[in-house]
């Protein structure tokens, strides 16, 4: 029961804070959006814990909330956008149609998913599930090559970011 209450709190919080990023009244200033998103990440991290993905929950907080979102906020403050530079957000038919289509997809998908997986509760996890041990075992044996590739990708991203940020676009 406690778990279900936790789930509803976490899920509701994640959805609400994520919606605040996107909804115009709050998202008008990107700084509020970013802060709201950090909150959302914390809630999601909680959901990870419920899913017995402890390592991921920690990483979520460390990397997303700690690193990526700090970078966002840093850039937002660096740009220090005025109202004029933020521009007038226009409401167009295309936007309306897009929202409608996305909502339709989401509703339909939820209906399909729930009918397909049913309401049967998840079974209890194994002893080693979600531990650093288990993850490290997979990561450094079976997925060693992709792991190394990701490190190269990060290197490329760093170099790319530096080059892009330094060069004046023409």
């Amino acid at each position: 029961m406690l778990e279900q209450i936790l789930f509803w709190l976490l899920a509701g919080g994640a959805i609400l804070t994520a919606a605040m990023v996107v909804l115009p009244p709050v998202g008008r200033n990107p700084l509020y959006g970013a802060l709201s998103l950090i909150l959302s990440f914390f809630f999601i991290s909680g959901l990870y814990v419920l899913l017995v993905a402890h390592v991921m929950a920690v990483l979520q907080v460390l990397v997303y909330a700690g690193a990526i979102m700090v970078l966002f906020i840093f850039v937002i403050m660096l740009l220090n956008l005025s109202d004029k530079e933020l521009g007038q957000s226009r409401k167009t038919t295309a936007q309306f149609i897009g929202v409608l289509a996305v909502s339709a997809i989401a509703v339909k998908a939820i209906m399909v998913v729930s009918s397909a997986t049913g309401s049967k509760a998840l079974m209890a996890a194994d002893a080693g599930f979600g531990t650093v041990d288990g993850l490290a075992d997979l990561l450094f044996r079976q997925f060693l090559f992709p792991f190394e590739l990701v490190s190269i990708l990060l290197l490329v991203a760093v170099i790319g970011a530096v080059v892009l940020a330094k060069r004046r676009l023409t």
Partner: protein
Amino acid sequence: MQTGNAVESADFFTHAELLPWIVLLPLLGAAINGLFGKRMSKGAVTFFGVGSVVAAFVLSCIEVSRLAELESGALASTLWTWFSSFELHIDIAFSLDQLSAVLLLVVTGVGSLIHIFSIGYMRSDEGYWKYFSYLNLFMFSMLLLILGKNLLVLFVGWEGVGLCSYLLIGFWFKDMPKAEAGQKAFVTNRVGDLAFLIGAFILLFYSQGTLDFHELKQTAASMHTDQPVELTIVCLLFLVGACGKSAQIPLYVWLPDAMAGPTPVSALIHAATMVTAGVYLMVRTNFMFSASETAMTVVAIVGAATALMAATIALVQNDIKKVLAYSTVSQIGFMVAAVGVGGYVAAVFHLMTHAFFKACLFLGAGSVIHALHHEQDIRKMGALKKKLKVTRWSFLISCLAIAGIPLFSGFFSKDEILFTAFTTSHWGADPKMYVFGMLLLAAFCTAFYMFRLYFLTFEGEYRGDKHTWDHAHEETVMNIPLMVLGFLAAAGGLLGLPHFTHAHFLHGWLQPVLGFVKGKAPDGTPLEFIQVGGENAFTYVHDTNTELMLMGLSVLVAAIGILLAWRLYKRPASELPKAPVDAWWHRLLSNKYYVDEFYDATIVRPLRGTANLLHKVVDVGLIDGLLVKGPAKTLGKIGDGLRMFQNGDVQAYATVVVVGMAAALFFIV
């Protein structure tokens, strides 16, 4: 039969290395001048333009002398197979036989002289290089026409000369009437060309896939017995083609207008060479015409009628080039009439002498026009013999030649036509005498209008303005061709002395091509036959007394014409007879029998009306409005609607993707 022909052809023809080069040299000249002429100096343009034609003339002389040394057969050279499909097999091939040899020497020889003349005439024209490029292209096409071994190569040349004629008539295309004259020539020629092409297709149907002239002889012989009607139709279609190219009734109307081109062009294309292509075609396919009596009758009547009609129109013309133009139509009428009575030799002979004296006359006219700053009205000329000595003498010689004064070239050739028309036995005496009478009357008119032209231009008093008179002069580079052509106009007739002298060179020379057979009548009079499939199609009586009698008659007629012109026009300006402009006959003639008006009313206007209707209602309304612009407008509207999706906004694109995804999801699940 196919293989039999091929073997015989192989035996008949001797390979000739230089033959293609005669054709290709002018093309090379045209290409060089056409592509680079604008940036080359005038000297270089002259070198390539004139040099290529003179070189072709030299090569022609070499090849013709080779032909003369052959015991039998002809020269030929096959470049490549043009196309081959089942039975049909057409080569790009040239052949040089006795007939094409005559034409070849005339075309390259007279062509060279006219090219040289053009150096002087066109010197100050800004389109100098373009002019020589066109002229060389014309020479190429004309040589293709003459040397083509089969009907299709001939047709390529036939179309080529038509194109060049159009280009050169409209050479000064900024002048609207001149451009229109070019179009008129082109369109009129198309009528004839179409008939020619249809004829060639019909012929192809019966000839087992060959259009080679040498092999067509058998076709003609077999058609003569099996499909006489079809053969006649082919011949008549060829006649219509010849009428277009050679300016005969009913398609002659373009030639007088064609005088809008530069005068050397008139001399080369519209007097000496291209316009005789129709005659050449008919002589080339003589074996077909001989085999069709009906076609021959029509040919003779068309020729004689054209000769007389054009000669009468020429009587009242006041433009020096128009007189010569109608004279050309008339003279070609003589040649066509000669073909129609089976006098192929006479036709070729007259074609040759006509090329000499008419080219000389046109160049003389060009010299006059050049000297008088483009004045062409003979009423404003006179007494030019004092200023233009060489021109005057060559012009006089040519006038004597065309009028038919003994010992000048035209006398012999015109006499032979009259003689042939008089003695031929292809059909009954009465229509034959009509043809003969019309030709004789045309000869009288010819003598009169030519000397009217001569006296008004070179004798009497000068009637133009003084400034022009003071500056009138001749140019050496233009005088040389005049002198050479004048000489040829005087002496060219020696190639065909009358039959009683037994020294008719051309007659013997052309015998292998035209294939007539000598014989004797029961009373000992020498006869000649043209045979088709072993039968005698034509018989000529070579009776000396008749020949002498006819000569006397034609000289008498010519002399009367000249003397009449002398009495009327060799006078001071104030005493010149006034043209009876109000007389019905003068109006009829000066309006050219209202033929242009007639064509305008019966063909041009209805066509234009129909075209207008089709244009306004069908094209603009239905096709443009509904079928073309309708979908375009609809699509435009749709496009306007779709443009909001194509605005370069990635988010809009993504929206489309998402909408598509939604649609797919609801469609599948």
